[in-house]
């Protein structure tokens, strides 16, 4: 059993990254705690969400957590699946203040839940193992479940490690009832945790405070003593702590034992004003620790704003993502180019594609830019419809996409550092709307 729980290093997915499309150093790996799985199931590294469980074909597995909405509930109750082949035609009225019963947009192409979230069916005779069990769907078929939650794959995922159907950054109270990838427990010493951000998987203390390293430290030894250690608390290892994998322990001159990750002694910044604050990174020479960092396209820039640091285009204009979930009982997405664009067109252009293009222009890819791994890619978009188009279609635009969804700038931002479209949308854009691409924010809820 001890061997079973040993550190497992994750292979780097998609090793070849296209020329001119990624900026940061080589991707690092993330360890997890192995556990028994159904035959053929495996763990795949995902670029932003860390290791995720996948089926025998390598497709990421998702659950649909039961969720209380403003008016009513949705999602899967334990041991059941509410995702069926029913094609809903009317809104559910789950979100205040509007009533339900409104005919949903683009019914002719609207899918059923199982069209976009195929249940992960279990073969005849499948046996429960560990956290994995088998539930019976209403149509009598058997479906795999993890920790009691019915499992699905996403039609948006194409390659092992893709997490295009849904991700793990914290959802707001008024977000749609989104699907989440399921994942094994990260293999970390006690007292630490890892969280998903747009910049990557960040290492935190178990209470949620950011973990830092210092550029001044050398060869695994801490140079932060005296007054420095009053501001930057060395993260002490317990007497029972042991080195393994990326983790080591160094004896400090004051007699304390300090955790070291990948050769860097670890600290907490005592002046950080709230959990997950990154204020310490404003001090020159101090860095937050990312277990795995998301590379950004080289042609992008980083800009300071009054609320933090954002990713920006080559001209310095803030980049925005667009998120959307509809108000049907099955809470389908509406932010991917393969899905309805009615909500986005309404928000960005009052229903006019032409105005959308003026208000929220796509971030065009430079001529030499190509896809840059599973998170950032260059896609071809028909600007009139907002859907994918062939690369040679008339009027097609080559635009940058994050997680397969185009990103935008806002014409209402006069210059670098402006974020006027941050949280512009329904329910502060939690339901449908634009979010600035925060790399670092001083405001507690924005980044996660």
């Amino acid at each position: 059993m001890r061997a079973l729980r040993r550190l497992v290093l994750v292979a780097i997915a998609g090793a070849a990254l296209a020329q001119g499309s990624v900026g940061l150093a080589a991707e690092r790996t993330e360890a997890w705690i192995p556990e028994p799985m159904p035959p053929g199931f495996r763990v795949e590294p995902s670029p932003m969400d860390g290791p995720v469980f996948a089926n025998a074909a390598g497709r990421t597995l998702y659950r649909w957590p039961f969720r209380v909405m403003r008016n009513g509930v949705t999602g899967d109750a334990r041991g059941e699946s509410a995702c069926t082949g029913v094609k809903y035609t009317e809104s559910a009225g789950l979100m205040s203040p509007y009533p339900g019963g409104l005919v949903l947009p683009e019914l002719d192409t609207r899918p059923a839940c199982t069209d976009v979230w195929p249940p992960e069916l279990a073969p005849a005779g499948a046996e429960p193992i560990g956290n994995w069990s088998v539930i019976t769907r209403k149509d009598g078929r058997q479906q795999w479940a993890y920790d009691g939650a019915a499992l699905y794959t996403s039609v948006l995922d194409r390659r092992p490690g893709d997490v295009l159907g849904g991700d793990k950054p914290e959802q707001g109270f008024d977000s749609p009832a989104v699907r989440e990838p399921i994942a094994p427990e990260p293999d970390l010493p006690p007292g630490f945790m890892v969280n998903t951000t747009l910049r990557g998987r960040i290492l935190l203390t178990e209470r949620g405070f950011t973990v830092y390293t210092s550029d001044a430290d050398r060869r695994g030894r801490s140079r932060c003593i005296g007054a420095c250690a009053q501001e930057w608390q060395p993260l002490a290892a317990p007497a029972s702590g042991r080195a393994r994998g990326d983790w080591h322990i160094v004896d400090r001159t004051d007699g304390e034992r300090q955790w070291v990750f990948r050769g860097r002694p670890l600290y907490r910044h005592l002046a950080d004003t709230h959990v997950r604050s990154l204020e310490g990174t404003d001090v020159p020479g101090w860095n937050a620790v990312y277990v795995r960092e998301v590379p950004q396209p080289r042609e992008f820039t980083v800009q300071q704003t009054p609320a933090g640091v954002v990713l920006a285009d080559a001209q310095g204009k803030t980049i925005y993502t667009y998120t959307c979930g509809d108000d049907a009982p099955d809470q389908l997405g509406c932010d991917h180019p393969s899905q309805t664009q009615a909500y986005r067109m309404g928000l960005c252009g009052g229903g006019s594609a032409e105005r959308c293009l003026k208000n929220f222009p796509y971030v065009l890819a430079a001529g030499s830019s190509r896809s840059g791994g599973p998170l950032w890619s260059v896609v071809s978009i028909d600007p009139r419809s907002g859907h994918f188009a062939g690369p040679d279609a008339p009027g097609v635009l080559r635009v940058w996409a994050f997680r397969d969804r185009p990103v935008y700038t806002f014409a209402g931002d006069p210059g670098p550092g402006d974020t006027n479209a941050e949280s512009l949308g329904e329910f502060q854009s939690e339901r449908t709307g634009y979010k600035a691409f925060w790399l670092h924010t001083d405001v507690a809820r924005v980044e996660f």
Partner: protein
Amino acid sequence: MKHPPPPRLLPMLGLLLAGFAHADSPDRPTGGSIAYVLTNMSWAMQSTPGAAECPKGLNEGTREQFKQLFPDNGTKRSFESTQLRREIDGFHPTIAAEPFVYREGEGPVAPGLDLDGIAGPEDFRSPDGHGGIDNQMHRVLGCTANYRGPDGPIRFFEDEMVLRENYNRVVVQLGGVDSLKDDDAVEVRIFRGRDKVLVDAGGLKAVPGGTQRVDLRRGANYIREMHGRISGGVLRTEPVDLLYPWDVFYFPSDQYMYKARLELTLAPTAATGLIGGYVDIETWYLHMIRNWSTHYQSYGNSSAPSIYKAMRRLADAEPDSQTGRNRAISGALATVFTQVNIIEPDPAEYAEALTRRRIAAPYRGMPAERDPAEEQFELPASTPAVAAANGGSR
């Protein structure tokens, strides 16, 4: 390349170097400097318990408007022609007429400042009897429950977030002060602080004596410097165009006021009073529509599209050079500041921050504007509101 400091920076640097020390008498701050951190803020308007300023009653909100437009009579309607369309009306507001009654706050009394030195027909009389008060925002918001005192939902939360959220940490620092009662020349600096406010054991009441660092990292744009004078214990400043942070529920947001001036009653532990000026309409509206979704608007019967139309209709300043239409509206913020000690920044770092300061241009709205004709609605003839709309107040 660094720019040379502006001439007005020099006295401010002196102020910085002077620092703050405990007062040696209640009226004379030691070192000639005292600072206050903003701990309460709301729109100044008349809100009497009986709503005498709203003789036509209070406004209906977006939920009620939706029911008027789309009554529950068994008609099957599309999402796009109803819910999505009303959301579009909020995010792409126009000045088109709408079939709803908008009830404005009325006079003769409303708090505020005399911004133009003229006693015009639209002006109010202040609660303490001063005439010529310019506060068209009272007309816009005075009869909308969300904004009325003492506890309209939006008013309550926006006020609470001033204390709770560091993004909103506005500080006013006075320099060259001989007396908190009378001094005909003081230097005033507004900046953003970086720290939490010192509060009492209950956690909701600010107490004096806390400390604040000056936000030179990301707060340079908020720094303003101006002259002022103190008379009878009241600080009055010259007008400046003021950018100020007002984050609500952790969604960062700013507001902009033209020709803003402070009128604060000073005490050693607190400063209370008004910040008056001309509110940039598009910036104000962006703050509102980003932070207060239709759901929250429904808490206290406000309607974003209707408020926008009222603001544009009642705007009284900053005419657009192209259209001639006013882009700003007179108003005032009721404020409470609490004494705080400033951890002075390095003067060189402060000067460097000023070189990065961008006097932000107000937000100008969605560049591709919607045609007002797209927002035309007709209420069903059977709806009683039709009659009310036809007899609307303006």
